[in-house]
């Protein structure tokens, strides 16, 4: 199956493209979420520039998203102050030919 068939965003291509709009939304709403200790550690559901809810688990956020939008790219992200980069010993983008 060609990657070109995928109708979603350009995955892994850079900071601005993988769920770029959703990440922008997440960064915008994060200070408000962190201000509520009950929400820290839970999962937000974001699609586009809208936050649709906060859920106890990632699976619940995904289910809620799929119920609402179908199986589409969405952001079901844990509410944390900072995400440290993790190491992966291979390139994650298309290999140079």
């Amino acid at each position, binding site marked *: *199956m060609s*990657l070109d*068939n*995928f109708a*979603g*965003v350009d*995955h*892994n291509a*850079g*900071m601005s*493209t*993988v*769920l770029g709009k959703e*990440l922008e939304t997440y960064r915008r709403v994060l200070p408000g979420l962190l201000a509520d200790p009950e929400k820290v550690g839970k999962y937000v559901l974001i699609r586009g520039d809208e936050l649709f809810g906060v859920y106890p688990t*990632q*699976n619940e956020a*995904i*289910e809620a998203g*799929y119920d609402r939008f*179908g*199986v*589409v*790219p*969405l*952001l*079901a*992200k844990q509410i944390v102050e900072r*995400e*440290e*980069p*993790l*190491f*992966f*010993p*291979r*390139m*994650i*983008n*298309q*290999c140079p030919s």
Partner: protein
Amino acid sequence: MPIITGSITREGATIDLLIEPVEANRKRARPQFLTGPIPIRGVLDTGAALTGISRRLLLAMGLEVIDTKPVRTPVGPTQIAACYKLRSAFVSGGTRYAFAEAVVIAADCFEEQEEHQALIGRDVLDHCTFQYWGTARKFQFAY
């Protein structure tokens, strides 16, 4: 506690896996996609903080990105990796050992003809006891 023994090949500590969509995807499965279980071969890699699977396979399963992670690789600046959720099981000696749901990143640098299509990282190994017997060309892990 499942104990899995495998061989150390030229690629490293190689293990067979079955991967399949999580329930949220399976119950909404579209007919053109594989609903699994799909047999693949992976390499256990203590240098990888995350597990990465060939994007080709994730797309063939009809999965969609559900999260992102900032990832450093040997080349270039920190990138945002697309994350997918799936179920996986290890296979050893003809027995299937269910592991769990896992969030993995998509990686492009697995060639289609390559023997392995996944790097199993410390997100999995942190739940296991892993022994590497280099002289015997074997490894064992238990979880």
